[in-house]
């Protein structure tokens, strides 16, 4: 298999809409000084790798990530999530460093929540993508 998780992260980090709000796009867990208490919130994104099913007779994997966009306010969290969704939703075939992504799609839209400790509002959703499990020339 090929790990395309980093490629998804890069696409979010390079997206102008996301960059206009924050450059804090993290994989798996928040970065240093991302999670703060009330009154000190900063916008940031955590992308969580949910795994995915590799097919057996075709070099393809149906992979899934959860994108959680934290905002200073619930509205800000939604704006950041929408920017992330726009960066990845219904984006067609692309190739980067032999990693071939056929298509990525926002399959849930944004769902509101708040962190149990910091109470920082977030909006999260699931992005599915189809990726080649072998290097693409």
């Amino acid at each position: 298999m090929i790990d395309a998780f980093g490629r998804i992260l890069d696409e979010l980090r390079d997206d102008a809409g996301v960059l206009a709000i924050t450059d804090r796009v993290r994989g798996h867990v928040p970065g240093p000084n991302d999670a703060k208490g009330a009154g000190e919130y900063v916008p940031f994104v955590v992308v969580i790798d949910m795994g995915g099913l590799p097919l057996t007779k075709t070099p393809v994997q149906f992979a899934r990530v959860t994108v959680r966009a934290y905002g200073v306010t619930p509205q800000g969290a939604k704006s950041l999530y929408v920017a992330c969704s726009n960066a990845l939703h219904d984006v067609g075939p692309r190739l980067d460093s032999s990693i071939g992504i056929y298509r990525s799609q926002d399959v849930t839209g944004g769902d509101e929540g708040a962190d149990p400790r910091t109470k920082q509002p977030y909006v999260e959703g699931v992005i599915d993508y189809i990726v080649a499990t072998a290097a693409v020339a």
Partner: protein
Amino acid sequence: MARGSRVVLNRAAFDAITLAEADGVFEVAKEVLDVVNVPDAPAFGQGLIEGGGAVAWAAGKKVGGTTIGGKAIAKPRGLKTPSNQVVAIVGFGFPARFVELGTVDTHANPFLTRAVMQVTPGADVIISKATARRLAGVRAYGGRS
């Protein structure tokens, strides 16, 4: 001489078919419950995951349900159960969401997604068996069986 054709719908069987479809998707949801490995570590300050279950609706009516932990499952607010569809859900109660997807302090542990992905490839077989069981008692149109 040209023969005319007349289509007679076996309306009674439509209900059976709808119920059979509901049985099928409910069996898939129950299979997820069977294979899921619920973490026993509490999410940050939120206690343990204690309850979960699966529920199915056909044509907007609840037609099946099972629980772990004893509490009845209410239909999630965001869930639509249209009158022309069968719907089944499987899940766990609070704080499963924070365990599944993590918090600012804890890593995600997508235990439910793993179970779903484990079951999904064989869902067609599960649905087929459950559907066949329900339809075994339905008489074929024309009364010859």
